[in-house]
């Protein structure tokens, strides 16, 4: 991953935000995660965006359905554990063919310290695919923005549900003892 300043390029998180802007994303529902902290900050600071903190991830699936009914595009930021909270709500996404792109920061995989994260993290992709969500995985920083842009494209062009999994190796494992 390296030091973005030293590499003289935008950090991959900022590149993802640029992809959201390019896709005219206006509503950003989120349940906070350390891996999404930068995107949340940028969304909150952007006057053309409405950042909506959620108590549970499933609320965001419904939020974005409403946004689309009103003609706005949105996206959803969550941690892998939150995918489990979305399952029944995704029935609306599928039945109505609402476009959806979920950006999911992964826990419970690379160098995970907390075993309670593992059951959901290790089944996140399978759970999404069971719900007919198209899943794209990012392991390298240089692929992040392009993958998000591709997921947004296929979601909004095809009225399809998509998820981009940002891997724990990309994010760096959570440090428990500093």
């Amino acid at each position, binding site marked *: 991953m390296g030091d973005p300043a030293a590499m003289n390029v935008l950090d991959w998180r900022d590149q993802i935000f640029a992809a959201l802007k390019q896709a005219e994303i*206006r*509503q950003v529902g989120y349940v906070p995660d350390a891996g999404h902290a930068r995107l949340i900050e940028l969304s909150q600071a952007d006057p053309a965006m*409405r950042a*909506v*903190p*959620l*108590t*549970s991830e*499933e*609320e*965001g*699936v*419904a*939020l*974005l*359905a*409403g*946004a*689309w*009914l*009103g*003609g*706005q595009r*949105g996206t959803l930021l969550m941690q892998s554990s939150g995918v489990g909270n979305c399952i*029944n*709500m995704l*029935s*609306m996404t599928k*039945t*109505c*063919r*609402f476009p959806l792109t979920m950006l999911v920061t992964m826990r419970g995989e690379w160098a995970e310290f907390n075993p309670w994260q593992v059951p959901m993290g290790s089944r996140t992709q399978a759970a999404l695919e069971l719900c007919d969500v198209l899943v794209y995985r990012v392991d390298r920083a240089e692929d992040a923005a392009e993958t998000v842009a591709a997921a947004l494209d296929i979601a909004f062009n095809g009225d399809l549900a998509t998820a981009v999994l940002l891997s724990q190796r990309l994010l760096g494992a959570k440090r428990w003892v500093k």
Partner: protein
Amino acid sequence: MISNEPRLDQRLDRRAAIRILLENRGDLLVVTGLGSTTWDAASVADDERNFYLWGAMGAAAMVGLGLAIARPDRRVLVVTGDGEMLMGLGSLATIGVQCPPNLAIAVFDNGHYGETGMQASHTAETVDLIGVAQACGFSETFDITDELGVRDFSARIRGTATTIFARIAISAEEPPRVLPPRDGVLLKNRFRRAIGADT
């Protein structure tokens, strides 16, 4: 509180309440929750500007929020039942933080799960939805038990500067079902077309 009272049958008729809310609706956009409130809205008239939930229990208020944020030029009314609202109770916290000025939420509260055999809901026991809404930051709430109250709330839908919340106590009777279309893609596309969101 009205729940648990023997006067239950004297509560408002749900179809009378929905007629008041949707008569002369103007350009109001409507989201209904899974179950009886979807049949209620259809009983007044099927309308392209109604988005009926036939599933996704707990979603109604949040669909209303996303719609209200997307269309600040239009008024949005969510009509749902106590059971549906209870499943999405966290969404009242989320909406309390946003409080868009063009959103109204009306919960038809009969204290029962009408679609599954009339089992008692939490509002028939200890839970006070008005108290929940107020605690979540809704500054304008309506605890409604009669038609006059519904008319007053209906007028406020058109003229407030914050999200408003009503609990409308209705009788636990089940009027005949009136079923609107249930093709989700049709409901979505005709709604978007009706409000010019499909361009």
